[in-house]
């Protein structure tokens, strides 16, 4: 086993996918000649050529729709949308086509499409490049939402997503791109959430870019950290198990609070674990503002380890 970066893990996963299956191709803005906006696809154009590492014009709606069509037509496309913010230009195709076709056609047509996109804040890119809308997509039946927070998952989730017969949105976290970790080479699933740190006093539920922050906070408060990994469909079994032990829970979510993913997790705990709890479930989300540019304001807008620790302490007050 060797340690690689999250970025390299994503690149290796793409390389493997293109190498293994002729039906797989990657398309998106600047994935080829430019080398990928975040250098994730660097070197793949040279290896697989412009048919399979396909640069597109600035047409998110058009090429995402074309990805759906290609998937229907027998290919296994990987569409890259630079960031979740720009995926809003493709929202119609994702929500009104990809997610619905299987059900609407009475089960006749599946869409084996993978859409990758970067998400999250932390790099002073201001409001149009920093939002976390993956929880939003989690509202939509018909798609699977995966959020690799570890290098192992960054390496393994793409293969699992390609094996899925339905559309999968794979969110990548530039805030984690430089983090290093071991990769085992084992297959990973895209169905379950996982305990990332054991602890006895409180259960901290999180995903994606907030995982390192949650782990840091957990050191201080003896927290048990659970990484959701898959935001739709949610697997809360490990959370329910953990809460039985800790009897307290904080949900950490970089999305906004109102109507967010954290709210969904909390609601399910109300439904399924009410009598296990010794305190109301708490949450740490982004402040309800567009993410600002200035560093200190951006930091103030996002979940931080100190805020998580404070929320945990609040449960014992």
């Amino acid at each position, binding site marked *: 086993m060797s340690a690689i970066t999250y970025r390299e893990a994503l690149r290796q996963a793409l390389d493997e996918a293109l190498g293994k299956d002729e039906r797989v191709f990657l398309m998106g803005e600047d994935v080829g*000649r430019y080398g990928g906006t975040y250098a994730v696809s660097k070197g793949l154009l040279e290896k697989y050529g412009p048919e399979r590492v396909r640069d597109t014009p600035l*047409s*998110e709606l058009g090429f995402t729709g074309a990805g759906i069509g290609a998937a229907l037509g027998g290919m296994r496309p990987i569409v890259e949308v630079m960031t979740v913010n720009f995926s809003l*230009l493709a929202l119609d195709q994702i929500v009104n086509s990809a997610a619905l076709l299987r059900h609407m056609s009475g089960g006749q047509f599946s869409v084996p499409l993978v859409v990758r996109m970067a998400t999250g804040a932390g790099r002073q890119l201001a*409001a149009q490049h920093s939002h976390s809308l993956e929880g939003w997509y989690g509202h939509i039946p018909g798609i699977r939402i995966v959020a690799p927070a570890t290098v192992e998952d960054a390496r393994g989730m793409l293969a699992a997503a390609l094996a899925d017969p339905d559309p999968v949105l794979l969110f990548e976290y530039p805030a984690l791109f430089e983090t290093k970790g071991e990769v085992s080479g084992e297959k990973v699933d895209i169905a379950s959430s996982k305990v990332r740190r054991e602890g006895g006093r409180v259960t901290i539920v999180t995903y994606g870019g907030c995982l390192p922050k949650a782990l840091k906070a957990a050191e201080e408060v003896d927290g048990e950290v659970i990484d959701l990994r898959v935001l739709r469909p949610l697997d809360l079994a490990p959370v329910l198990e953990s809460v039985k032990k800790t009897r307290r829970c904080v949900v950490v979510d970089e999305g906004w609070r109102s109507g967010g993913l954290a709210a969904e997790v909390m609601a399910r705990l109300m439904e399924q674990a009410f009598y296990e709890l010794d305190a109301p479930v708490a949450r740490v989300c982004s402040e309800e503002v567009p993410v600002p*540019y*200035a*560093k*200190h304001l951006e930091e103030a807008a996002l979940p931080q380890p100190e805020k998580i620790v404070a929320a945990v302490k609040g449960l014992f007050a």
Partner: protein
Amino acid sequence: MKVPPPPAGKVKLPAKLSLALLADMLRIRRMEEKCAELYGQQKIRGFLHLYIGEEAVAAGAMRALEPEDNIVATYREHGHALLRGVSMDAIMAEMYGKQEGCSRGRGGSMHLFDAQTRFYGGNAIVAGGLPLAAGLALAAKLQKEKRVTACFFGEGAVAEGAFHESMNLAALWGLPVAYLCENNLYAMGTALERSEAQTDLCVKAASYGMATLKVDGMDVVAVHEAARRAREHAAKKGPIFVEFQTYRFRAHSMFDPELYREKSEVEAWKTRGPIHTFTARLKAQGDLTEERFLELDAAAQAEVDEAVAFAEAGTWEPAEHLTADVYTPQ
């Protein structure tokens, strides 16, 4: 790729206007050179898109517009904001993230705003500003105002649905809007001919019934003349699309290794640089002495130094204000 010959310079503007245009370009150039340096020092963060090489477009166009006009721009908008009248101090402070900045430090380089000069922002969604410009123009038309809306954007935007929908609306409703396309040949690393089946941008706009102009965007005089005509057309007859053929000398943003173009191509375009070609032309015409040039350059540099000092002395918005202005106070 073939690089066109240097600006021909047939038209001659009054000396005073010429010197003003030169000074405008110098102000942008010196400001942005400093920005690049400050980025290296991590004083400016986030994304930073420099306009170096393209200054003739903003310079020529801004002086053709009127104070009542609306401006819509992209994330590559430092020069547009500056020449529209946003102070260099406020722009620099914004890039520092200080509350004295023109967006209080909340927007940064890509989101410069200024209500006073009707500068409706740096928009970082490619083509995001185009429908907005159509709406501003519609409002002006409905309220029988004389203002024109000038919308700047890169050629990458023509692939977006928003471009096509905006062209159609503007033409259909006869809106007083000038769509000013800065064709610098690359959208990040994607060359125009690698993304468009039809590379003649004017043909696209014309297909919606728009008037069109194609202009050498490295020639500030030609730009100015075209922008003047475009404004007049927009005000009197309706929408117009202008393609300014230009080139960016620097990377797309500060993170771009420029794998997609040859150094020699950049060097060839630099021989057409808008500032030095215009300087030479003015000198040849007898409108400019070296001494005067140095004065203009020194003035621009002094303005930059002052703006940096202003930004350095600026203050941080208290984090307690974070949630202010998400909604309008009642």
